[in-house]
Structure formats: C-alpha cells, structure tokens
C-alpha cells in the first residue's frame, strides 16, 4: 500500500473531494468506476444503459477540457472524478489510494465516536449535556460521511454499515432513514447483489416498522425497487429475497395486488425462477387464510382459493406451451399441482361457478395429456429447447407420481412407461439417468 506519506496525502485529498461531491449532490443515483482510457469514448453518444462506461453520460465532453470543475463550491480533480446530472464517475486508477484513505478516516472517526459513547455512559448522560452533544453530533456526522464514502468503494464492508446503524439507532430520527434508503439504493444501482446494502435496507425497514403503523406505502416502494433492479439483474436471489421478506408486512389486499402485478412481469421473464417463487410465496400466504391477522380484513374463502390455484394452473400451461423448455415454468407447475392435489383434488363437490372440481384421476389425466403434447411437439431437428421441454415434462410427471397415494403412483407410472421409451430417454439425458432409475417403481 505504499505507505509513504505523500501517497497518503494524495489519498486524503481525493477522499475530501469525493466527500464534498457527495455532500453537495445528495441526489446522486448512479456511480461508475471507469478507467481514464475510456474517458474519450464516454464523450460520444448518449447514455442509455447502466454499464459503467455510459454512466458518465453525454455531457462529459463539455467539461473534460477544463482543469478543475466547479459545482457550486466543490472543486475536484477532473481526471479522477466526474459528476453531473446526479451521476458520479470515479477513476479506477485511484481506487487503492481512495480506499485506504476512506478506511483510515472511517476507523479513526469510529474509534472516537465509540470512545465518546463509552465516556458518556461512564459519566452518566446528564453531565455537561450541551458540549457533549455538540461533540457527539460532530462525530456522528463524521462517521456518516466517511462510511458513505467507504461503502461506495467497498459496499459489503459490514462494520461500516454497522457504524451507520449505531448512529441511527442512537438518534432515532425518522428523517435520517431517508439517507439510508438513498445510499443503499445508490449502491444497488451498480452492485445489485450487495448483501450489505440489502441487509441494511431490511434493517432500516424494521426500524421504521417499530415506529410507524402504516407501512403500505413503504412496502410498495420497496417492492417496486426490487422489480426495477430485477429487470437489470437476472435471477437476483438477494433482491427477490427482500421482496419475499416484505410479504410479512403486506396487508391482504397488497398481497393480491402484488400477485396481479407480478403476473405480467413473470410472463416477460419466464426463465426467472425467483419471480415464480415470489408468486408461490404470495399464494401460500393467501392459502393460509386460516391465520388471518387482526384488523378485521375479510378472510379469503375456500372458493376463491380454489379459483386462484386453478387460474394459475391454466396460465402456467399456456406459458409452458408458448415458451418451450423453461425449467422455471415446470418447477412452478410442480408447486401448483402439489397444492391442487393437497387441497382440492380429492374434494368431489364443485362449489365454484368457474370450474368443475376434478377428482385426482381427472386431474392426473389432464397433466398426462399436457406431457404427451409436449413430447409430441418434439421435432426431428432435436432443438435444445424441445429436448429440455421433453426432459422437464417427463420429470414433472415422475415428480407428481411421488406426491400421490402409492396405488395412483403405480397407475400413473405404468401409463408413463407405455407412453415413453425410457431406454431412449436415459441415452438422451444421462445427467438424469440415476435419478429416474431410482424413482421408477
């Protein structure tokens, strides 16, 4: 790390510039780390995507030939930083220096802050309240300032997130939480999987939930944030996990809204298993209507549950037939069938005007037909997608055969063995050979 003092001074100077930029442009919503060699290329063309190169934006050109840039009163080295239209770019060449400076500044401020807390506890909180308070506030803002810079550079630095939590939990001011949402959203814009940022967001929501009763608006915004991030970052486990977690805080009507709204999204992202899992989470919440929370909301009744699962089954079938070979769709169907079999298939009485309630045999018959149709669409050119479709279809029926009473299982598997040539399938899908051999009775 060099360790020589001149390099340290340069780092400190850069850190101060960065912190000034962040202070003066509170609305920065994108950060990019860019090699200066890319600067000329950045000047061409409008920014359209989120790639670091484009984050610099189209207006970089008109300022690049000045030596220093003035933004209100902020002076910074334009070979290192670029800031306009609430976008910030940082040269990757200075990252080690900048990181070390931010780390040292944070460690120092944090140490002093904790010391001050300790001495207050020792002295008793009422002693010289005024001067202690000013000093405290100074240290708090130091901690917030340095952690912001450090986290932008190293977003999973847990201790830095923790220090922010410490400051916030001591201040207990709702208005301060806005900054936390802003900082974590900023980091998620370029590091959409950052565990530190997601975890900090969850903590912030929990803190607010302790003070505020009506969380509907907040939950809705959080859910939308996940949707937007998921758009650019496929199958983002952390992001969707956040959304699944939010279900805990949703009202019954929000659950229904989410179910409706995520439908379109799922259709446009049929390979994103996370979104389908989210729908499963929402549906299970609906199906567990027995334990409706207090608040007098109308519990969902049996008929609407039957209808919800039935509708999802129809919709899923349509998608399976339209988008060939998508594992996520078949996985979703397993869940739906499982629900259907468990809750409704043995109920012979039809009480919904929309559907004829089917018994288990009818249901299995329909599923078998679906599989058959998928096998028969297989063309001679042996396209990958059709191969996958066949694999998933057979797997699906085999899987379902394990979810039903053993007499039905035997019948279903016998039908399956008549319909497909397993020796053939074993050759085609060697990676499933062992599993299928084991589950065939």
């Amino acid at each position, binding site marked *: *790390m060099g360790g020589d003092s001149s390099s340290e001074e340069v780092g400190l100077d850069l850190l101060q510039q960065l912190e000034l930029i962040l202070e003066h442009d509170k609305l920065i919503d994108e950060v990019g780390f860019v090699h200066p060699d890319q600067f000329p290329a950045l000047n061409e063309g409008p920014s359209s995507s989120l790639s670091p190169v484009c984050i610099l934006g189209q207006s970089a050109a008109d300022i690049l030939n000045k030596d220093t840039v003035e933004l209100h009163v902020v002076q910074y080295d334009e070979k290192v930083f670029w800031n306009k239209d609430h976008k910030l770019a940082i040269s*990757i060449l200075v*990252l*080690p220096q900048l*990181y*070390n400076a931010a*780390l040292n500044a944070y*460690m120092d401020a944090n140490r002093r802050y904790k010391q001050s807390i300790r001495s207050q506890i020792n002295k008793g909180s009422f002693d010289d309240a005024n001067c202690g308070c000013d000093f405290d506030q100074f240290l708090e803002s130091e901690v917030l300032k340095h952690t912001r810079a450090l986290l932008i*550079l*190293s977003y*999973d*630095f*847990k*201790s830095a997130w*923790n220090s922010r*939590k410490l400051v916030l939990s001591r201040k207990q001011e709702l208005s301060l939480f806005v900054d936390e949402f802003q900082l974590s959203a900023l980091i998620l814009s370029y590091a959409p999987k950052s565990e530190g940022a997601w*975890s900090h967001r*969850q*903590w912030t929501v*929990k803190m607010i939930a302790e003070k505020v009763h009506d969380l509907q608006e907040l939950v809705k915004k959080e859910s939308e944030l996940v949707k937007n991030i998921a758009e650019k970052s496929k*199958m983002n*486990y952390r992001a*969707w*996990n956040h959304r*699944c*977690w939010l*279900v805990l805080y949703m009202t019954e009507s929000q659950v229904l809204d989410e179910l409706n709204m995520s439908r379109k999204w799922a259709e446009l992202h049929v*390979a*994103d*298993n*996370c979104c389908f*899992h989210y729908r*499963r*989470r929402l549906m*299970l919440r609906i199906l567990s209507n027995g334990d409706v929370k207090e608040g007098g909301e109308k519990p969902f009744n049996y008929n609407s549950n039957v209808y919800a699962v039935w509708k999802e089954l129809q919709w899923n079938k349509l998608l399976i037939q339209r988008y060939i070979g*998508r*594992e*996520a769709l078949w*996985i979703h169907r*397993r*869940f739906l069938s*499982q*629900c259907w079999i468990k809750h409704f298939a043995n109920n012979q009485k039809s009480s919904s005007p929309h559907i004829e309630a089917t018994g288990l045999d009818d249901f299995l018959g329909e599923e078998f037909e679906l599989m058959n149709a998928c096998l028969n669409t297989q063309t001679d050119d042996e396209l990958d997608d059709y191969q996958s479709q066949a694999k998933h279809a057979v*797997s699906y029926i085999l*899987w379902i055969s*394990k979810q039903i009473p053993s007499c039905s299982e035997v019948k279903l598997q016998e039908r399956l063995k008549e319909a497909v040539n397993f020796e053939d399938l074993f050759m085609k899908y*060697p*990676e*499933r*050979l*062992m*599993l299928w051999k*084991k*589950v065939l009775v």
Partner: protein
Amino acid sequence: MDELESDKHVKYILSIEKKKDDVEALLMEHLRINGAYWGLTTLDILHKISAVDPEEVISWVMKCYHEDCGGFGGNIGHDPHLLYTLSAVQILALFDRIDVLDAEKVSIYVAGLQNEDGSFSGDMWGEIDTRFSYCAICCLSILHCLNKINVEKAVNYIVSCKNLDGGFGCTPGGESHAGQIFCCIGALAITGSLHHVDRDLLGWWLCERQCKNGGLNGRPEKDADVCYSWWVLSSLIMIDRVHWIDKDKLTRFILNCQDKENGGISDKPNYAVDVFHTYFGVAGLSLMEYPGLKSIDPAYALPVDVADW
C-alpha cells in the same frame, strides 16, 4: 482426462497473501478471515498445510478476536459476526489449537445471538438467516458447547424454512438455494435431526442441479458453477443420495475450471480464479474421493481428521 494440478494450486494459494495491493484484494479485506479459512483448508486437503507457519496464522486470528464480547471480526479492527467467528474457530481447529480460545466466552457470544423463535442473528444488529443458524451450531459443536443453546428451537426454526420442493431458504418462505440447503442440512446433521428431511424430495431437487456439462448449479435456470459442487454434493452425501448424480462428469467439470498454468480454480471454465472457488473445487473433489486428497467432513467443512475430535 485432466488431472488435478495440486502443486500449482498450493502455489496459487500461498501467493494470495503476497499481493495485498490490488483493488480486488483490498475489497476483500473485510472478510479476510473467511479467505484464510478457504485457503488453509484447501492446503490441508492437499496435504500442504505445513507450508504456513501456524503461530503466525494463530496470532493473526486472535487479533481479530473481541475480548469484550467473545466474537471474531472479519479482520483486525472489524466488528464481530457469526460468519467470521465460525471461520476463526475452524482455522484454530485446523491447527488443533482450539485451546488458545476462551471457549466459554466464545460460546456465550454465539448462544447470545439465538432469538426467541430459535433462529440466530448474525450479530447484534439482528439480521436473521439460516446461514447464521449453521454458523452457530457448527461453531458450538466444535467447541463442545451445544448445550448452551436451545437446540430443539433452533432445529424447529430451520425446519420452518423448508419449502414444498424439499429445499430450504434464508428465512421462512425464502426461495430454495443450494447454499442455504447446505447450511440447513449441515445444522440438522450436526444436531442429529435429519429425520425432519424428506430425503427423496430434497435429493431430487439437489440432483436436478446437475447441468448437461456435468457441473452443478445453485438453483433452477442458473449456469453450473464450481462452488455448488461443494454445497450440493455435501448435502447429497449428508442425506445419502449422492449416487443420484453423475460424479465422473462433475469431476471433469471441476478439473476443467482449473488454471493449469498459474493454479487456482474458477467458477466456470476459462473464468478468473479465486480462493473461494479453489477451495470449493478441491473440497468437491475430495467429497468424490479424488485420489491423493484428504477427505473432508460434509457437515463441518473440515478435513475428517480434524473434525474427528
């Protein structure tokens, strides 16, 4: 067929320590103790742990210790967390030096993070995840202090994170993920609670992680990645369903992800190597009894001669 480039991997791991200056190394600083565990365990599996000075490692690990609370940070001066505390304890176990610890104090720290519902917070800030349940249970078991927590509640919480597909997520209702499944199955195995698992159902989910190229992915629709060789395989072994996948193809996939010139293993063929995937690749091979490797315990993630205390 490719062979495991053991010597080169050893060289690669020893070299990581020396390049502390590049950006990537700096950005990993906050979890250096995890990195140390991955690197050192790999060396041990390759029979080369003697290449490092135990005293140097142990004194550094102990500098990450917080005497006031009993937890370990990810590096010197960093806040304590269960993820780092487990790595610290595992490293000390590798060198058979648990004795340098105040086991009582560490176990009180870990036990103190158990919540009313049996779950574990990762640290004082309250994030809950089944990963932390594993860290706590594994750590306490190594320290022979499982009696300090409510094991029954801990097990029940993990079971409440089970999905209808047989897999497990971070919290109740979370999506099944091979990494989380390893944590849950590992914790259940250590506490002798695997009867809560539908082995066939989970085994099915796990072996469907095997892709055409032989590698394993972590959840449906994802590409194969070397690290899942560890998480999926160890789980399959613990529930006795490892014969459901094609081990030869998986072995070839892992070997194909080696940097044959400079050592190290990457997540996918021809990607950049890192210590994390090097560990999981070598550990995965060890689970498949690749010749010349120490065998590793699937629940404790330590060589069996270490785990056998």
